[in-house]
């Protein structure tokens, strides 16, 4: 057993921050998951958050699982799909175990299209499904014919066209795109309007050169969805966080994720162990006609954006989002970002915030600082209807449960000969 002094830990955390800052994420392709992730087994469903079985899944997650089974042709209808899911014949695993992430339910299977982001500074790749749009979609548990057919079109038409266009221009560097998005009011979790427009502008000419069919539908599909870029940002964030994982003695958080039941974190210096606690209900604004009882507790891998300094950590960039999620005024948004500086190792000067005199986003959550200050990471999030397929009921702010950080510190101490 090795021991870790505060100086050793500080050095390991500086290395984690260095890797985050040195990362060079590039969107390089869109592929089917089975091609992008060859080790993804058949009859396996990847989901958001830490590990969970069918018996503990929330409504939207179950709905999405049933839909994915029908999409893959493992069952003929949703009832048969639910029986198959409950039978134990389907393997459930977190996206994070396969270098992946997915928003809300985060369901990913072999024949779905995934965005591929390569971190060229470190050579690793990360994956995320293509954003389906808003309303009746699988990420909110949707599973009817409309949802399945859209996923089939993404996998067979839009995905290959996007992949060809991205390869045609030899990839799209994302770090600078994010920087521009921050200066245009995106925080890359609940607001992606600027970057969705920017990436469409980047891709339109190449799509025109390479798309074999449905060009106008593909362009409208991207242009009609302000959250199209969210999934790109998530794959990018995963490619960055993964580069900072597995540094001995580091207390930097490299994963935050929720499965609609549990919230889980992983820490660079404690390997692939999950530290989990109950997912919380987001506080924010509900759409007209909904009440808090309609909402599901926190769900999705999308807080990988906060893990690398975006989303709630970059709230000061986004006056528009702070109103949308019911978090107050611009000064409140700035206060959120300031508070995140108390629990992070440093800042990312490449991702500067105009409302903070171009200070960089707070980056590299240190579990020790979270516990020492009692300040929990702030996450901007959508709120899913707790019933499958009913979509989004609102948006708000949420935090991980403190127990995740307590467990992580205890485990870290045990691994480093510092038991209390």
């Amino acid at each position, binding site marked *: 057993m090795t021991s870790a002094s505060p100086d050793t830990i500080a050095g390991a955390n500086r290395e984690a921050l260095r890797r985050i800052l040195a990362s060079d994420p590039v969107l390089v392709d869109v592929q089917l998951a089975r091609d992008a992730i060859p080790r993804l087994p058949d009859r396996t469903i990847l989901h958001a958050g830490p590990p969970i079985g069918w018996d503990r899944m929330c409504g939207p997650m179950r709905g999405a699982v049933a839909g994915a089974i029908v999409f893959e042709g493992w069952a003929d209808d949703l009832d048969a799909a639910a029986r198959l899911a409950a039978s134990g014949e389907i393997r459930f695993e977190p996206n994070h175990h396969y270098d992946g992430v997915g928003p809300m339910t985060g369901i990913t299977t072999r024949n779905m299209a995934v965005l591929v982001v390569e971190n060229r500074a470190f050579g690793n790749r990360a994956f995320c499904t293509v954003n389906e749009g808003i309303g009746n979609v699988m990420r909110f548990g949707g599973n009817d014919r409309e949802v399945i057919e859209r996923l089939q079109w993404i996998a067979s038409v839009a995905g290959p066209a996007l992949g060809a266009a991205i390869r045609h221009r030899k990839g799209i560097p994302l770090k600078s795109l994010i920087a521009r998005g921050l200066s245009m009011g995106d925080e890359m979790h609940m607001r992606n309007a600027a970057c969705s427009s920017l990436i469409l502008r980047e891709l339109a000419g190449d799509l025109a050169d390479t798309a074999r069919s449905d060009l106008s539908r593909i362009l409208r599909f991207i242009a009609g969805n302000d959250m199209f870029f969210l999934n790109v940002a998530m794959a990018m964030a995963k490619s960055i966080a993964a580069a900072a994982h597995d540094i001995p003695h580091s*207390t930097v958080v490299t994963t935050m994720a929720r499965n609609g039941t549990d919230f889980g974190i992983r820490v660079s210096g404690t390997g692939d162990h999950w530290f989990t606690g109950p997912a919380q209900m987001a506080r924010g604004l509900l759409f007209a006609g909904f009440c808090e009882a309609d909402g599901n507790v926190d769900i999705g891998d999308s807080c990988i954006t906060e893990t690398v300094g975006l989303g709630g950590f970059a709230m000061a960039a986004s006056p528009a989002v702070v109103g949308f999620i019911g978090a107050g005024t611009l000064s409140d948004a700035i206060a959120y970002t300031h508070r995140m500086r108390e629990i992070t190792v440093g800042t990312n000067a490449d991702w500067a915030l105009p409302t903070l005199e171009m200070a960089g986003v707070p980056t590299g959550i240190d579990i020790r600082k979270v516990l020492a200050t009692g300040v929990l990471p702030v996450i901007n999030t959508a709120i899913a209807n707790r019933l499958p397929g009913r979509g989004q009921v609102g948006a708000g702010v949420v935090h991980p449960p403190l127990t995740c950080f307590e467990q992580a510190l205890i485990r*870290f*101490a045990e691994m480093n000969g510092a038991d209390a």
Partner: protein
Amino acid sequence: METDKLLQSEVRVINIGLAEFAHDLERCDVPVVHVEWSPPAVGDPRIAALLAKLGG
């Protein structure tokens, strides 16, 4: 400072911890600066002991 004379001149307050105390003073037009603070390790002695060893 003699504490018995503390409230005989203008009172200016730094409030630490619970924000509601600051809000009450604001409502009484008392100058107040609120400092967000909570006990280290949220008061858990085992976590506090680990933080003392591991820093943070």
